């Protein structure tokens, strides 16, 4: 018995939506769900491409009215100046309110200690958690995507966190249909991930389609870098290069933007969006695998940090 199916063209129906339209529609639905059900939502905004896409989607979701959320940036003190500049311009252009939680302030006050390796990403958890408590945010939008890392593949769109911001993978609520359950006790909050189902390529294609402006460091440029742990890192006051490391001028671009100490650049001559998209489509490395030292720490590094309250 052989089952024969008629082969249809994938886009044969006038009601077919492109994958970008489907993802956009889903993300907008998530933003509006939060606006309808929460008192004090906030968007984590770093000036990186994922948070830029989040903001763009939020603007579309509520137009012609303003976005009904504030922004929060956890600043490691080691951010790229181009990115901070972009952040401030975006905030001004859309008349938004930005809260900044500073890792440097915590270090200066003796509440956090610098790690021997100089990496500050893991230090973001405490300032983030305390900012959430202090401002009583009940929904916190993050740009996390499930394709980024194995522990994230199990993350919910609405992810409940206790008053310590902890994530317990065993206590996650099943998430069915498009029905998101955002109920939480006072002091608890929900992390919300509107880009859950997007891939790196989707994000770039969407940026291209919508004509969204990005910080220049996403495109190929000449920069003084040095090699560490198989990555090109930007020389700077954050702790590099060491005596054993040599600085050289290379044509590079960043696939992700985070703390300078653990965000690596890739060799690239992609100066346009189309060139970047072609490069990513051909890449044999994942975004984080190519550029993030912090995810390589251990097989369960991300799971452990998420449990502690990391985004």
């Amino acid at each position: 018995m052989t089952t024969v199916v008629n082969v249809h063209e994938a886009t044969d129906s006038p009601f077919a939506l492109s994958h970008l339209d489907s993802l956009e529609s889903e993300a907008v639905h998530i933003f509006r769900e939060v606006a309808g059900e929460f008192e004090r939502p906030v968007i984590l905004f770093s000036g990186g491409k994922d948070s830029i896409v989040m903001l763009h989607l939020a603007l579309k979701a509520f137009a012609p009215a303003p976005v009904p959320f504030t922004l929060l940036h956890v600043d490691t003190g080691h951010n790229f100046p181009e990115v901070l500049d972009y952040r401030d311009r975006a905030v001004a252009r859309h008349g938004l309110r930005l809260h900044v939680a500073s890792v440097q302030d915590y270090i200066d006050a003796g509440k956090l200690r610098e790690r021997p390796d100089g990496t500050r990403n893991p230090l973001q958890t405490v300032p983030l958690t305390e900012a959430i408590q202090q401002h009583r945010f009940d929904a916190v939008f993050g740009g996390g995507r499930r394709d980024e890392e194995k522990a994230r593949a199990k993350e919910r769109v609405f992810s409940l966190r206790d008053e310590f911001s902890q994530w317990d993978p065993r206590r996650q609520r099943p998430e069915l249909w498009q029905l998101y359950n955002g109920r939480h006790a006072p002091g608890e909050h929900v992390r919300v991930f509107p880009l859950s189902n997007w891939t790196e390529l989707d994000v770039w294609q969407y940026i291209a389609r919508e004509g969204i402006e990005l910080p220049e460091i996403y495109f190929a440029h000449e920069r003084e870098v040095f090699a560490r742990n198989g990555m090109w890192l930007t020389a700077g006051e954050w702790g590099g290069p060491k005596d054993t490391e040599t600085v050289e001028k290379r044509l590079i671009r960043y696939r992700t933007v985070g703390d300078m100490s653990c965000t690596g650049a890739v060799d690239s001559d992609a100066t346009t969006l189309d060139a970047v998209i072609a490069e990513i489509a051909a890449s044999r490395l994942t975004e984080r695998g190519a550029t993030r030292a912090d995810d390589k720490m251990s097989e369960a590094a991300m799971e452990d940090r998420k449990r502690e309250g990391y985004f």
Partner: protein
Amino acid sequence: MSTSTEQFAEFADVSATTLLRFATAGSVDDGKSTLVGRLLHDSKSVLTDQLEAVEAASLKRGQEAPDLALLTDGLRAEREQGITIDVAYRYFATARRRFILADTPGHVQYTRNMVTGASTAELAVVLVDARNGVVEQTRRHAAVAALLRVPHVVLAVNKMDLVEYAEPVFAAIAEEFTTYASELGVPEITAIPISALAGDNVVEPSANMDWYGGPTVLEHLETVPVSHDLTACHARFPVQYVIRPQTAEHPDYRGYAGQIAAGAFRVGEEITVLPSGRTSTITGIDALGESVDIAWAPQSVTIRLADDIDISRGDLLAPVGDAPTTSQDVEATVCHVADQPLAVGQRVLLKHTTRTVKAIVKEIPSRLTLDDLSQHPNPGQLVANDIGRVVVRTAEPLALDAYADSRRTGSFLLIDPADGTTLAAGMAGESFATTKAVAVVEDEEGWDF
């Protein structure tokens, strides 16, 4: 340009590809991880660093070959115990389509995960081992797909290499499964003989089974229709949020924002607002930045109306003459998804589309055993992974469709008001889990077969 760049250049412009959400059901023993691993691997979605991580982890555990299951088992407990605890979402793309795969564990105690994965799936792949054929677990998977009304089911008969690629083995399994799943109401079943390990009919057509003339698994995934004529569906628009800028630029703008749950809406159409029953006419549809004359599911839009009537989050817009009835009595099939039980008399919250109301569980008429679809009357309570019928009374009227007519407006959650736990996933109206008198077939004397 390297060969890989040429190979992938076509991805650079895929603005016209569609998106298919599908789910896989089957246990590790059926070779599910291998099938998923192969789909990801052969569609170039497993990248070098992911493979390296898997190889390193496999070596550390003393395994010789890279264990593809490690690609999907993301949590420490899963890796330590070699099981899958939770739904894992995987992403891959071909030149023709983008895929979202809900990879669900197949063990009996994880019914809730399978239900979760199937709830958003347009297609489900059910895996069987060609040597074992249709077993209890296969029937459970078919039942879940039928209950959740997944439009397309693929039966992947795996390990054909271990039965000498014999067509009669495949044909018998395909027939048994198709008969069973059709009786449950699965609308479309495609059976494919595969060997995930050897790669037969997963991505590449099999040279070992020239008797099979159908598509490979990937070909079928790429070509199965994901959209159909929505003008024939009951149009439904749950209001999520009211947009009122009240700015100098837009002093009088009032739009109702939401995602179209079913069907299509047009400018000029007359609509009813539920539960109030007020009517108005659509004067504009804003589709995220552009004004359109028509919009359809699942687009997120903002609808403007001719009349300034009282509409808020939780209301439902439907065409005049095709609106659902409202009721405070809900009868449904539920899958219980929480560790704490659901009992008769329990006070809960019911979330339906954008509306959450207080409710009380009046009755639990029956519990269903998925293996043989037998009914157990009045169990008193449901526990984790149970599927049963419930009767719920709500504090306010709901505009609920039958789940059979509309997955999005016929589904709901039951939530514990004390701690917010999602207790149960509900599907309104009739299903094969509805209690009915089972006809007893008597042996007819005098017949001699």
